[in-house]
């Protein structure tokens, strides 16, 4: 698709669309040149059980901070469930390698500080595409910084620089590898991958802030007023030549 300087269909939630599209294209280029090939190699070469083990270990480490955030969002029961998951998976699940808690009916409830800020009443702010990290927003960007420093089990706390950087790399590749099917599908089906990803991201974040609260406003209102609108008469110029 040709690069468009001005957005043809501006979205009020995305006032920086021109800039964001630039970063998106940058990310996409780097991704195709370097990141995707490495992630593809990882998912081809590394045996599935190892991949799932690596994924679960990183995910397990995140459950403590996830639980803290759920507590900050006044979701006490969910918070305790997350910490219970961490304890069970760390011990019985061999350091988080196996996600036993999910199998016994205690699924992960993903949460982070961006969500907490949302629950506290902070609006999403403008949508923001971050270099290498992808979709975010002003609020979630701030939240991400807090996630880095606040998470007691973040890789950031590892003192050995070599080990820390290797783990950062592994986590990045592992995350990207998990997304390969999705990004391939988006590439092949989305009319505009940029707005597909943006709209999915913003919807998902709104849902995470709503949490499990029953909310009548949660359903989109599509204004189905055109239900009985008669079809337009075919204009002579646009008539299909069949």
């Amino acid at each position, binding site marked *: 698709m040709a690069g468009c300087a001005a957005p*043809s*269909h501006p979205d009020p939630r995305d006032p920086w669309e021109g800039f964001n599209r630039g970063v998106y294209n940058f990310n996409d280029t780097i991704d195709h040149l370097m990141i995707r090939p490495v992630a593809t190699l990882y998912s081809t070469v590394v045996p599935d059980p190892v991949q*799932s083990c690596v994924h679960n270990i*990183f*995910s397990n480490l*995140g459950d403590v901070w996830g639980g803290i955030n759920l507590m900050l969002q006044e979701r006490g029961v969910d918070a305790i469930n997350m910490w219970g998951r961490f304890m069970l998976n760390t011990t019985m699940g061999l350091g988080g390698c196996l*996600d036993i808690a*999910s*199998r016994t009916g205690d*699924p992960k409830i*993903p949460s*982070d500080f*961006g969500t907490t800020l949302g629950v506290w009443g902070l609006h999403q702010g403008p949508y923001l595409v971050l270099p290498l*990290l*992808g*979709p*975010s927003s002003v609020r979630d960007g701030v*939240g*991400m910084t807090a996630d880095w420093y606040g998470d007691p089990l973040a890789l950031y706390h590892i003192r050995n620089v070599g080990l820390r950087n290797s783990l950062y790399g592994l*986590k990045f590749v592992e*995350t*990207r590898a*998990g*997304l390969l*099917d*999705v*990004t391939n*599908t988006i590439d*092949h*089906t*989305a*009319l*505009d991958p940029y*707005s*597909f990803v943006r*709209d*999915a*991201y913003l*919807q*998902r974040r*709104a*849902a*995470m802030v*709503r949490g499990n609260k*029953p909310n*009548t406003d949660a*359903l*989109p209102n*599509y*204004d*189905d007023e*055109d*239900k009985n*609108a008669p*079809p*337009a*008469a*075919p204009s002579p110029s*646009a008539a*299909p030549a069949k």
Partner: protein
Amino acid sequence: MLSSFSTLMQRLLCAAVLACVAVAAQAQADKPDPNGPPDQLVLIVANQALTALKAGGSTQENGIARINKVVDQYVLPYIDFEKTTRLAAGHYWRQATAQQRTDLSKAFRGTLIRTYSGALTRVDPSTTIKLLTKRANDVQGDDAVVRTIITANTNAQPIEVDYRLGKGSQGWQIYDLNVEGVWLIENYRNQFAQQIGQNGIDGLIKALNERNNGN
């Protein structure tokens, strides 16, 4: 953020696909009743679709042609594709001719099947679907929400999938789908508007069909 978004996108595919599939199949005696309660309709249709998919052996081997067939045969009667397309097109629907409406619905249907077929290949013998507890406002007149949870293979996180149904002359029919908080129609509205704004309705139909043909 990246990782939570990645799980979301994974589930989007994986679950939404199931959701779509879930609406398939009539292999069992318990026939779906579009005039009964919407949650039972979704559950029965979904379970029958799952049974059919599992019975077909490894779905992975059969690919998109088979999924297309399953969708045509089993899912279609319970989905109002025209409504899905109409709502995604928004006010542009008024400007469309009868022919364009038909073509657009058909092209969009192809896109949705393509989108979800990848996820459908992940159905395995352990895949199950359950209804979540109903809420007081789930059914409002002719509009209903049915909330389900799909448990895929043992290593994957369960996926929450909600269906939106409308009641018309054919009873309840599904017209929208929510995977982990993301509604399908809402996610296509901007792209439709963008494409129509640039190239008109015929341009949108063409763009969808081009992608359906594997470009």
